[in-house]
């Protein structure tokens, strides 16, 4: 795919759509870049609104989360992210979780982000399928035949999250995977060369450790790891630790 000759975008632009954006703003404008969180399949902006948005705002970052259009393909969802970022007043940091990491990786080929963070990014659908079959075969096999993907709490969350909370989150997470999820499309080179960080957990049962290493290597680094946590780092009991590490990294990379 040529980065310059964009026949598809010129002749068949993605049509506009409703996009849910949840925002938490700091009390004073400290001049820090806005953060835009992008959820993956099965959950929406709410997953970031639980803890991370408020926490980031408390540390002075204007924090937003966008739910890309339902049923949109990767191109449409990346378009939604770029549109939302371009509508913010300043050059934005893109932060994607799970398959949202893939949407962000696509968006980085279109929008010069201030920086990018991929949290437990699901860039390789086949590795994720293997991991899902190992950790939850009965919930995964039906999805291969067009059914709904059923998760178990053990698969998505670390052991420390109280069972009731895990159950409540599970009820809100619904995924009907599409064939596009398994595609291994080539990720574009990020325009403007933003600093990029990969964050994850070695105990994630959705995105296995080797996939995290590969994702980080793709962007020229090593993953920042939080052992003991599950896939949904932003919903775990220890949610503060990874977001603080991300904000510390941003403070270091983007000195004011």
């Amino acid at each position, binding site marked *: 795919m040529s980065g310059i000759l964009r*026949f598809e975008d010129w*002749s068949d632009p993605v049509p506009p759509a409703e996009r849910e954006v949840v925002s938490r703003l700091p009390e004073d404008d400290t001049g820090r870049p806005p953060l835009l969180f992008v959820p993956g399949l099965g959950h929406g902006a709410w997953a970031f609104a639980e803890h991370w948005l408020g926490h980031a705002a408390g540390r002075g970052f204007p924090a937003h989360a966008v739910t890309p259009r339902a049923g949109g393909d990767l191109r449409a969802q990346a378009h939604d992210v770029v549109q939302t970022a*371009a509508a913010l007043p300043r050059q934005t940091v893109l932060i994607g979780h799970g398959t949202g990491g893939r949407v962000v990786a696509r968006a980085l080929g279109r929008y010069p982000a201030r920086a990018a963070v991929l949290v437990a990014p699901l860039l390789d659908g086949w590795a994720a399928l293997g991991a899902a079959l190992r950790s939850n075969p009965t919930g995964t096999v039906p999805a291969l035949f067009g059914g709904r993907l059923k998760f178990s709490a053990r698969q998505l969350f670390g052991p420390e999250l109280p069972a009731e909370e895990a159950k409540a989150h599970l009820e809100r997470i619904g995924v009907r995977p599409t064939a596009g999820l398994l595609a291994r499309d080539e990720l574009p080179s990020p*325009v*403007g060369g933003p600093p990029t960080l990969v964050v994850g957990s070695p105990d994630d049962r959705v995105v296995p450790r080797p996939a995290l290493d590969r994702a980080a290597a793709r962007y020229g680094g090593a993953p920042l790891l939080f052992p003991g946590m599950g896939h949904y780092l932003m919903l775990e009991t220890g949610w503060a630790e990874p977001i603080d590490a991300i904000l510390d990294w941003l403070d270091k990379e983007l000195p004011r």
Partner: protein
Amino acid sequence: MQDSPDLGDRGGAVCVVGAGASGLTAIKNLREQGFAVDCYERETSVGGAWNWRHDRSPVYAGAHLVTSRPLTEFPDFPMPDTWPDYPHHSQVLEYLERYAKHFGLGEHIWYGMEVTSIEPAGDGRWDVSIQSTGGGTSRVQRYAAVVIANGHNWSPVSPEIPGDFAGQVIHANAYKEPSRLRGRKVLVIGGGNTGCDLAVEAAQHAGRVWHSTRRGYWYFPKYLGNRPADQAYHRRMPSWLRDRRLRRTAADLTRWGVPAPDHAPLESHPIVNGLLPHYLGHGRIEAVPDVTRYDGASVELADGSRIEPELVITATGYRPRFDFLAPEVLEIDEDGRPDLHLHAFARKHPTLAVIGLVQASAGVFPLAHWQSVAVARWLRLRADDPEKAGAVQREESKRPLASWSRRKVVPTRRHWFEVDHVDYLTAVESLLKNMETAK
């Protein structure tokens, strides 16, 4: 920057002339490559030609884009997808203001400052003289490179018509809103996009309208069915097919006495105006040939007939001007045409470039963006790895002119910087690749 008449050496910084669309994207892309940038803007705000508050702005109240959003926006900062297909000029200004704010470009722009001269200072460096537009002392700053983005739609070209005219003659750049036309007999001279737009505005407001064109153009509609026509033309397809599609969808206005085009569809930039045939068909616009003479209250036409307009609007275009440079620096010929590689790089001065001096089959912003990406990466390569830069320069000198320029195809003073959107971007893309892979 100190406010003294002494020569200030700005080290590795780059000077950008102008904060219109081309200047803004130049600042952004130079900053992205790590350059310090000083941009000088004679007005007190960004937007250049698109800012109707600027005294040199050619926009008029009713002006909308003639290319649709996806072919007009900067490739890395899309316009809102809820905006109309062909935004109004005030939205284009809002877009440029947001672009400047989003990327923090304002802090690199010095407003109310005019560049009065740019002189080579040896070793690829430049002495730039800057003067406050409110008068005051001028000062000289030394830069590692200069990027000129002073626009090409501000110095009007008026036709030389013999005789005296008793009515009023204005250039299109002085036309701002339709009250000026109401109830009057109007002659619009010029078949370009502005001339056709003004003929249509006149058809909606004036008493009687004549539209004089010398050459034939290709007249395209804004829509094919419910889709912007330029989107249909910019699908991936071989050029013969694009040519055929263009020929099939163009309006043939010869029935109404408009001259037939004397060139292939994309050899000159297309006229996009779906309403021109409409008003010709209503008899509200009368197509007339070239104007040969003014004679008191009347205007004599090439076919010998005479008409008596009260107002003549000359929509006969603009001329690029580089008053701050010695002509030989840009190798400007006697017709005022600079000789630049890819219409951007000065051939004898590797640290001098011009952005936005192209007239394309689609919007200029995307081309200005990719030009400035190429210029910024070139300057970076030259600073970091002169040997590799030399290899790229040798490679580039072999690029055939016909692969990116439509020069000589339509030999008029206006059309020498015409390019085809796809051909031109293909050439820039290959330059960018050469810079990555050169050894």
